[in-house]
């Protein structure tokens, strides 16, 4: 047997070691994605489930239905898209604000700090279904805790408002989503804060910088790289969140809180129209890819400026 040249063997080794991971990656991620994209070009309904290779090729038909904003399907999808955009921006903003504020305040050493940290993290540790269904009961109009406090105790509202129906459902969803996600922001920012050298603050204090100035000049700039990732991850999670709206509203979300993931589920998968559902999912994927790329491009360019 002829031995391979040493150089080639060296060069090949990393690939060889990567091979199992690569195969698994293909199997676990890429293949389902390819199948999903293929499905989006087919008229895949329950009639062809048993043998979906035989489903008729529909080319761009599913996409045309999804983006035709003058027809009911496309119009509903567009509405759902705007709702999701507004919801994501608000939810991510609030999560980040709450998380950062809590982390900065808990940076000081005081009695009960550990306990507070643990309490703040509970929403993140609870199982999603249990937590959200509890919120669903709290938001009930007649017997819910929220109306009991707002209406019966504080008398802030005239009548008992609905929280799970109509326009208020948007705020109900926002509250639950922020409640559920902000501990993650808190956790990440808290960890990042530990890495800022104490000397910086001491030096700043010697120079006469107040708390606010320290926050603006030291804390926030040091958090920048962490925030860049944090905001992106929060955005992707919120934009794609299925569990929260599904548990809160069931199969049919009210129009004001009709998030994309549930909308796609309801418009296609719940009605066994898998081709259209796949097309909508691919559109969602493309949008998120564009946003992510644009975001990374914009933020890393900004950082180079700041560094240079």
């Amino acid at each position, binding site marked *: 047997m002829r031995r391979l040249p040493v150089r080639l063997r060296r060069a090949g080794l990393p690939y060889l070691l990567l091979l199992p991971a690569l195969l698994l990656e293909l*199997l676990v991620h890429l293949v389902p994605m390819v199948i999903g994209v293929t499905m989006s070009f087919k008229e895949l309904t329950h009639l062809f489930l*048993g043998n979906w290779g035989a489903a008729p090729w529909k080319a761009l038909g599913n996409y045309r239905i999804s983006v035709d904003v003058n027809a009911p399907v496309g119009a509903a999808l567009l509405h759902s898209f705007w709702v999701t955009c507004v919801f994501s921006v608000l939810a991510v903003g609030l999560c980040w604000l709450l998380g950062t504020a809590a982390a900065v305040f808990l940076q000081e050493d005081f009695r009960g700090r550990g306990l507070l940290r643990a309490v703040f993290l509970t929403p993140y540790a609870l199982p999603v279904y249990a937590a959200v269904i509890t919120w669903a009961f709290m938001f009930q109009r007649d017997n819910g805790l929220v109306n009991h406090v707002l209406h019966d105790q504080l008398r802030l509202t005239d009548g008992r408002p609905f929280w799970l129906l109509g326009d208020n459902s948007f705020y109900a969803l926002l509250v639950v989503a922020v409640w559920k996600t902000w501990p993650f922001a808190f956790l990440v920012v808290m960890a990042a804060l530990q890495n800022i050298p104490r000397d910086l603050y001491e030096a700043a204090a010697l120079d006469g910088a107040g708390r606010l100035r320290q926050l603006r000049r030291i804390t926030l700039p040091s958090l920048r790289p962490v925030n860049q990732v944090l905001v992106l991850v929060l955005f992707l999670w919120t934009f794609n969140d299925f569990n929260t709206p599904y548990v809160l509203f069931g199969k049919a979300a009210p129009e004001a809180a009709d998030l994309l993931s549930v909308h796609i589920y309801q418009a296609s998968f719940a009605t*066994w129209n898998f081709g259209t559902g796949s097309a909508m999912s691919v559109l969602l994927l493309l949008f998120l890819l564009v946003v992510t790329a644009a975001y990374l491009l914009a933020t890393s360019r900004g950082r180079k400026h700041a560094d240079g």
Partner: protein
Amino acid sequence: MRILRAATVSATVTALAAMASGCGGGTGPGGGGSNDSPRTLTYWASNQGPDVEADKKVLGPELKKFERQTGIKVKLEVIPWPDLLNRILAATTSGQGPDVLNIGNTWSASLQATGALLPWDKGAFDKIGGRDRFVAPALGATGAAGKDPAAVPLYSLTYALYYNKQMFKDAGISRPPTTWDELVAAGKRVSKDGKWGLGAEGGQLANNIHQAFVLGKQHGADFFDAAGKPSFTSDGAVAAVKQYVDFMAKDKIIAPGNAEYGQNQSLRDFATGRTAMVLWQAAATTFAADGMKPTDWGVVPVPVPSGTPGSGRQTNSMLAGINIAVFKNTHNLNGAQKFVKFMTGDAEQKLLNKTYGSIPPVRAAQQDPAFDRQDTRVLRETLTRSAAPLPQVADEAQFETSVGTAIKDLFADAAAGKPVTTGSVKARLAKAEQQMAQ
């Protein structure tokens, strides 16, 4: 370089293999069942009891009985409701599934269209004692008209009107309503001081459909025409949906809060004396769990226009229930049919339906005194006399989602005090119909 190429090739091959198995899988679409493994069966049971463990306790001894009779070992898997349809669809896609399975009877036509279930032609029915052993309405919910049924009825359920005896007495109502006018009148007498006449689950799409379907029948309207095309906006269909929503909007006998109910809160309201009536299927065990004694409530057939339930316009319940089906790719066809015969036999029908609080779709088994109590008698008589299956069309799931949502939205309008008119009902139903056309 060679290693790199080998890596690329093997990766591609793996991917292709995975794709091929993903879309083909099992035996081909043309292949029926076989008898490759005659000693075992896999059975997917739906969750009928309070939890999965309870079902295993009920079914376990029966499966042992079957094993003693036939020598076939049955591997049981009890599947919770939210997962059942997804599991069946996954099994259909891959071709790898159980031998025998339970399906919700409203899915019959849809699953029939996938071709995943073995059709029950005359020969197959003869092996389990013939079609005539089953009551006709139950057979109506086993697949599209004019095709061999995709499944066999196993447990049946119908709707009844449950009422709170004490609340009726306090309001001076001497006898329970038999017509809708009487129901509205009774409801108005009860509805005051925080108490309400009727309970509803406005956020439960399937329940909305069941009520609208029955009222549609009473208005002489079907939600699908003879060709299976949706016709949601006919005068009868609009009137039916409006009548149901008007219990809240116009008659004001349903509490506005019920518009958002979706987790059976209306049953709890009934059990705790907040509402006097509720339209439900076999609710006895739920009431007991909420602390209501069986002597506190009464049960009568759901009202009809004439006061006497029957067929056609006097229909007063959708036919709910579970069917048992044989998966087309079974490896034990004979055993599967024997098992269906066992499960639909008189003895098992009596025992299982008694345990689960349902009514046997098998005539002979209905003679058992357990199906002649105050509640089961009403359910049994409704089943044989005045129940009708939901439309047996392949698009049933879409119907449930689109029209169920339309009714949910109308309830939301009513609860918010917005007017519910014939025009607004028609507009919502027209939108639902457009969604079906996608």
